[in-house]
């Protein structure tokens, strides 16, 4: 029984991957993200300089020694970009994970149990959707302090509603399937059905949401940093841009390289999201 189910879900995943890999951009996007994560994880080994080391070599343009030049305090921009990617990606993933956890939990309860609970939770979700989220985030961060921890939590807790809707739709339709009836007849409880039978099948659309949320969180963290609400004790791409705006005319490389990193990372996550969506609905292919 178990083994046939495992085999079936394995087959689902391989056919899913086959659809996904038809989307060339999405495969490249996955490659880009893998590379970004690898480089960030290995930051202490791959960064050529100490990212915080202040030297007299200020404003050096990109050269073979400093591939991305040096900034207004003589720090190596490449090393800072590598270390900055660590925090930026970390914030993106943690915030997105929080959003997904909250969203899936609320959506799952609404879709699975239905009725009054569904009404209540969905009204809450609708209410949250019309809150000017970014504004709320910058208010809360400016009131309670711009620490990485606060930023991640707030970004996560304000971006779950879309995921809740997606999860609700999935749980609603899946809970009407025959294999769920079968599980129930075999004596599985609600929680077991929700997390062991429905959730694995609802995974692909949740992955889409995760990918899009990571992109959104990285953009929002950068925007917060740019407005001066970032955590000044860490290096992020947004913080680097915040420091660069006054020196645009003196050293374009200070602004261009971290910006390109944000752009390509966000682009890659968005394309992955599109690729996953296409693989889910081959009829509505994006290209």
């Amino acid at each position, binding site marked *: 029984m178990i083994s046939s189910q495992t085999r079936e879900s394995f087959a689902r995943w391989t056919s899913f991957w086959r659809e996904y890999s038809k989307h060339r951009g999405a495969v490249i996007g996955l490659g880009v993200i893998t590379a970004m994560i690898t480089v960030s994880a290995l930051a202490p080994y791959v960064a050529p300089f100490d990212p915080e080391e202040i030297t007299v070599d200020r404003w050096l343009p990109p050269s073979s020694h400093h591939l991305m030049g040096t900034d207004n305090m003589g720090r190596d921009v490449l090393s800072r970009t590598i270390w900055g990617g660590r925090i930026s990606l970390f914030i993106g993933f943690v915030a997105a994970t929080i959003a997904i956890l909250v969203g899936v939990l609320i959506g799952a309860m609404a879709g699975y149990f239905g009725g009054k609970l569904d009404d209540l939770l969905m009204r809450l979700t609708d*209410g949250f959707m*019309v*809150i*000017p989220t*970014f*504004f*709320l985030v*910058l*208010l*809360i961060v*400016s*009131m*309670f302090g711009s620490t990485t921890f606060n930023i991640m939590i707030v970004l996560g807790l304000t971006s779950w509603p879309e995921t809740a809707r997606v999860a609700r739709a999935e749980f609603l339709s899946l809970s009407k399937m025959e294999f769920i009836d079968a599980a129930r007849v075999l004596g599985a409880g609600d929680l077991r059905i929700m997390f062991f039978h429905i959730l694995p099948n609802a995974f692909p659309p949740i992955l889409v949401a995760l990918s899009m949320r990571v*992109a959104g969180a990285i*953009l929002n963290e*950068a*925007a917060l940093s*740019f*407005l*001066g*609400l970032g955590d000044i004790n860490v290096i992020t791409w*947004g913080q680097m*841009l915040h420091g*660069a*705006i006054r020196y*645009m*005319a003196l050293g*374009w490389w200070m*602004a*261009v390289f971290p*910006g390109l990193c*944000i*752009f390509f990372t*966000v*682009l890659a996550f*968005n*394309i992955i999201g*599109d690729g996953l969506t296409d693989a889910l609905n081959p*009829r*509505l*292919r*994006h*290209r």
Partner: protein
Amino acid sequence: MSLRTYVFRRSLYSIPLVFFVILFNFILIHSAPGDPVIYLYGHLDVSGEQMEIIREQMGLRDPLYRQFLTYLSRILTGDLGYSFYFRQPVIELFAQGLPATLMLMFASILPATVIGVILGVIAAKHARSRADYLISTLAIYGYSFPVFWGGMVSILIFSVWLGWFPAMGMTTLTAAQAKTGVDYYVDVLRHLFLPAIVLGMWYLASYVRFTRASMLEVLEKDYIITARSKGLEDNQILFKHALRNALLPVLTVVGLNLGMVFTGAVITETVFAWPGIGSLLQAGIVSRDYTLLMGGFLITSICVVFANLVTDCMYAILDPRITYK
């Protein structure tokens, strides 16, 4: 139920929402860390006893519901408090910044919406063609860049390097170069160009993506297949049957974006030093002027409630499937 009754009822439904928004704002203010009295007078030589008196006078000793009622009545009379950074009532500051922000938003959102929807329809009509590939690719690029970074790079290229457009502000400020008459308007337009393009690009890209997805979904529907099997012309199906339904979700997003127009402005106005509400709020962030920020949040929330109301009414007019219940 007639349309008019629906609109009326829907308007009534907004009242509790506005109330909820004000309550939410009140809770936010009260959960802010720190003591407002120390925040206001802490730098002066004020004894603890005097602080108690100030607390009493400010109503901070009253029970919470009383404080909320005072707050509510102040908001309803248009009193959003006093900005300590600008030394002016918050509502006046917003009134001063509004024209510049509306100008920027009008110049970016309006063209972006029209062009975005058209491109989205073209892409969906020729799905998987070369044109679709081009449009979709550009759209996802435009959707992925941080707006402020786009602004920084465009300033670098078009102002610093090429010198085609001014880098910041809304007018040329130096007295020697100050413009009058027609020249003044040309000057403003030159200043407007870069911020409007940069902000518009983002809206454009998101509307293309949204319209395209919505169109593709509608084109799969049974009634489109029915229309096709009746032998109707492609264009007739596209514009009469599909577009009308596909535009409804787009309408929601446009409405929401219009409601959040000040949020969208904060970043762009900061980059280009555009003297509107966005720059005002940015100054509020830097100086930690919470009264100003809270006022902005409240106004934005109310705008969103209002924009939602308008969107819902438009829905009722446009969507034949909605029954007013």
